[in-house]
């Protein structure tokens, strides 16, 4: 989170904290959904934690992020209050949208989190607009837009990337390539292996990295963010990763093999990070246990807050449609 964030832990343990927090939060959301305590659609990002943590961790509060449906973790790392996030997901009055929309379509402007619509990739042009503002006003800020390899098929990806290239906008396109879009495998989504290959056609660099390797994502982001802040334009970072769950909580994911899942589970980003802590000489067992307790407490608290929050009143649906109603 960089400046403005109360740094109670050193970076190595803080990163671990976020990885675990995101996983705990995702996991809990899934469970609550299955128990009927969260309504609407839920899209688990379990297994993809290193992407959102790595992409957001070093951003500044004034930077903008544009998360999509599987980027719950991005909200948390950007400093959004877990209580409010859980309330948003439950459609409570205390959520960012006050119950007006579900799950992750809401945003929190003062944390630099801009909400999306469901229409995949439609937030990429919006991210370009924000980045254009940063450029016009000579502010050293960046806009970071997330999207899946499936969303990359939409025309909006193309129009946004093209525009970003022309104006060398301070925008970073983070593609979470988890090889499936709902049931559709990548081979039916595109005829190439790497979405990143498309960046060349827009006049900027496309970088491929392991999305299950936190350091790989962070290094790629560091390079891209510095370049963007310098005014040297956009970058596309493609993070190869995998979602452990189905597309949504309703999806049994029968279109993929158990072997494939196991292969990816053995590349788990959190376990990998735990090896790192160990190799670096930390008392890993202790950190793991302590962090586990901490994130559980945070998520317990969030659930408590959200569940005890009131539902919005029906007529509130008629408010905040306009900033200046006629």
């Amino acid at each position, binding site marked *: 989170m960089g400046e403005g964030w109360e740094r109670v832990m050193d970076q190595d343990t803080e990163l671990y904290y976020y990885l675990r927090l995101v996983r705990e939060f995702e996991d809990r959301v899934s469970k609550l959904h299955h128990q009927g305590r969260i*309504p*609407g*659609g839920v899209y688990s990002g379990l297994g993809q934690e290193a992407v959102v943590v790595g992409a957001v961790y070093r951003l500044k509060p004034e930077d903008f992020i544009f998360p999509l449906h599987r980027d719950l973790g991005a909200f948390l790392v950007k400093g959004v209050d877990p209580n409010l996030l859980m309330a948003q997901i439950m*459609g*409570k*009055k205390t959520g960012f*949208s006050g*119950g*007006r*929309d*579900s*799950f992750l*379509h809401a945003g929190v402007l003062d944390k630099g989190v801009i909400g999306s*619509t*469901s*229409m*995949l*990739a*439609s937030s990429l042009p919006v991210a370009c607009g924000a980045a254009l503002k940063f450029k016009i006003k000579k502010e050293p800020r960046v806009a970071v837009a997330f999207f899946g390899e*499936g*969303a990359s*098929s*939409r*025309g*909006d990806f193309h129009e946004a990337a093209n525009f970003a290239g022309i104006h060398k906008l301070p925008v970073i396109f983070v593609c979470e390539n988890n090889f499936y*879009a*709902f*049931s*559709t495998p990548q081979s*039916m*989504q*595109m005829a190439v292996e790497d979405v990143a290959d498309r960046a060349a056609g827009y006049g900027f660099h496309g970088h491929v990295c392991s999305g299950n390797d936190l350091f790989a994502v962070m290094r790629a982001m560091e390079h891209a963010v510095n370049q963007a802040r310098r005014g040297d334009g956009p970058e596309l970072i493609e993070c190869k990763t995998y979602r452990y769950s189905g597309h949504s909580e309703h999806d049994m994911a029968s*279109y993929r093999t158990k072997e494939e899942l196991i292969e990816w589970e053995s590349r788990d980003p959190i376990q990998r990070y735990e090896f790192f802590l160990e190799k670096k000489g930390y008392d890993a067992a202790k950190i793991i246990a302590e962090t586990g307790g901490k994130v559980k407490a945070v998520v317990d608290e969030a659930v408590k807050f959200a569940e005890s929050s009131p*539902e*919005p*009143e*029906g*007529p*509130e*649906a*008629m408010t905040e*449609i306009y900033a200046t109603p006629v």
Partner: protein
Amino acid sequence: MELTYIKAINNALRQAMRLDGDVVLLGEDIAALGGAFLATEGLLEEFGPERVIDTPISESLINGAAVGLAVAGMRPVAEMQFADFIACGFDELVNMASTLRYRHGGGAKCPMVVRCPSGSGVRGGLFHSQNPEAWFARVPGLKVVAPATAFDAKGLLIAAIQDDDPVIYFEHKFLYRRIKEEVPEDSYIVPIGKAALRRAGGDICFITYGSALYLCLAAAEELEKEGVSSEVLDLRTLLPLDRRAIIECAKKTGKVLIVHEDRVTGGLGGEVSAIIMENAFEYLDAPVMRVGAKDTPNAFAGPMEEYILPNKDKVLAAARKLAEY
């Protein structure tokens, strides 16, 4: 056989594909998965990947490719995974498909269907609840249908597939598994452009379509007990409207309540009201009234969605007002 609304759609697709080798399906996740709602379940197995085609997430491509397939001689049925996403493929429908024949001076045709799972009441929030039919029901060159029963779901879909013009087919998600009825096994057609009188009565008339039909039928039953006899007209086709049936209804009862799930402002109700105004003014014993969703996005939270959407009580309250007028 007894079929749910969604199974009737599935059955219609299967029958149409069996009858005509030129019918092909395209959309996101429709092949192996059978679609987000299983509307195309089992069709890949029966007809193979050349006729049940998974597409990338590209709504404009889907609709545009359907035009290309159609002009080249096929009968494509495209699926929007949710009706809400039709906004991403809007131009190909309102400009390309709708004018194809016109631009070719009648020398080409564009027989295609776009299936759109639409509607609220399923806690879908802003972008999985929309009723976008009014955007299309004003575009000459398109036809728009919105079945409310399993029988019509099948018959209108087969009619749409066999029609030589582009048809936007709005199927209502709320009805998918909630209604079930006897549906003929064989292929049959419900003609495009014809409304259905679901109930005859003399005091007031409900004009409706889609899931709102059931609110009207429930209200009509309640009114019956109160001694008010009501008629329920299910429009079924939204472009072109069955003007004759609408006008007849209005003339007969003199009191019309239009009910749809779509928002009131800019919804189809305004057009229907104006048609009655222009053609049955002298017969009206009360103003034509409209019940529909409130003028706001389709909010997510339970109390909000309830507040926004029409329901039996709201319909009944308006109907009573009308009856007493």
